[in-house]
């Protein structure tokens, strides 16, 4: 059986012991480090399959984020990095991804889940491995909402054009929010329809959200804002 080489950094000796105990058997070959210095010397001396990085290290609060950034930006190393943290705050998770982390685990974590995630990441197997496969949800309980962040591109009296990493189908009603929307349209969340979409490149799309004919207030607010910004 192929063994995966995993390097971890965490300043908590008890957690390192636990990791050693749980992972250093079967499919993993784990080395734990307690300082960033130690971590980087191991990182450069051997070939690794994935890294586990604790958010808070001896070197400082949230030093784990800086470490991930360094691996991505300076070392240009694409190795899968899993962030470990006590905190399940969404802002922190989003920040970890921004820094270049591949996944985010909340302490204490479920080791079966961890194994599934690692094999999934490393074997690039689209069907999630093992017994932790996602199971069908009864149709009664399927309702959910999904959201994605876009960058504003342009606005006119008819609507607003956004750019992002995903495409929304035409004719779909969406809820749009954010500080800029609140500033322009004087409403925290507005319901708009996607009337145009186009692919800009392999992973970037533009969507056009139209202000409804019946909502004159939106059109008026947009117009006022645009005129103010254009200095007319």
């Amino acid at each position, binding site marked *: 059986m192929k063994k995966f080489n995993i390097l971890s950094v965490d300043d908590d000796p008890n957690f390192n012991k636990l990791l050693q105990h749980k992972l250093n058997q079967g499919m993993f070959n784990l080395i734990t480090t307690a300082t960033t210095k130690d971590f980087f010397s191991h990182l450069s001396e051997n070939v690794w399959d994935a890294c586990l990085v604790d958010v808070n290290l001896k070197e400082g609060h949230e030093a784990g984020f800086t470490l991930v950034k360094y691996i991505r930006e300076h070392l240009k190393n694409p190795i899968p990095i899993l962030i470990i943290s006590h905190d399940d705050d969404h802002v922190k998770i989003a920040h970890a991804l921004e820094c270049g982390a591949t996944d985010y685990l909340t302490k204490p974590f479920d080791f079966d889940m961890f194994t599934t995630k690692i094999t999934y990441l490393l074997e690039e197997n689209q069907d999630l491995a093992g017994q932790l496969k*996602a*199971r069908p949800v009864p149709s009664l*309980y399927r309702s959910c909402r999904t959201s994605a962040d876009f960058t504003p591109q342009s*606005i006119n*009296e008819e609507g607003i054009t956004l750019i992002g990493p995903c495409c929304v189908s035409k004719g779909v009603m969406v809820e749009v929010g954010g500080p800029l929307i609140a500033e322009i349209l004087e409403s925290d969340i507005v319901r708009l329809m996607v009337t145009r979409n186009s692919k800009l490149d392999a992973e970037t799309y533009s969507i056009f959200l139209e202000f409804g004919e019946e909502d004159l207030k939106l059109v008026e607010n947009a117009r006022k804002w645009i005129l103010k910004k254009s200095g007319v």
Partner: protein
Amino acid sequence: MNLQSTKILVIDDDPKFRILTNKILTSQGAVVKECEDLNSAFDYLKNNIPDLILLDLQLSNDVHGSEFLKIRNTVAKLARIPVIICSSDNRREMVTNVIDLGVNDYIIKPYRPDWLIKKIYRCLKEQDAVAFTFTEPMLQQKITVSCEADLIALGEASCIIRSPISFSRLSETKITLEGISEYMKKNDVKIDFNPQKICRSNFSSRPSAKGQYDTLLTLLGVSEKEAHEIRKLKSGWADKK
């Protein structure tokens, strides 16, 4: 200055004034439509969208031009057309009244042709300016777009959603599992599970039905406790089958 193919609607009950204005405007290349009352004006506007409207206030049969403005303001496609008032009524309160109704400019009859042209030109230029391309630092401000979706499958490490959003590889999304909260309420299951989760797509979405896409998402930040809860939910659903 040139009004080449600019469509202008003139609403005035005085034929002499209409002819005069028509002459001035067509000499500049504009295309003019004349209407003597509100009925014929609204008939025309049903199928035509002019670039600008010149409106007289004192119309025949004691109809006031402000009536036109009040109706126009309730129809979005008409509310966007700029209006210039052409009236011999120069009382201050009249001017402020119609400005409150959203007119772009006011010109007192009789007027000099070059003034009228100038006002029309300025009005159209303002209209053209009603578009804005975002610049820094506004580009840093994220705009969140959310829509309804279906949670097709759920696991401890991942889930599959069906939605009208087609995600690229490695994009992030925040999902709210409303149906799971509903399940807990209905079956009186009290579990320690935050229905809001941040996820990442490790592969791009696959089209399922028309305008719908299936996306396999990795759940991020799931704690040990939550993993146990999801396991329980999963086995509960399997039993019912």
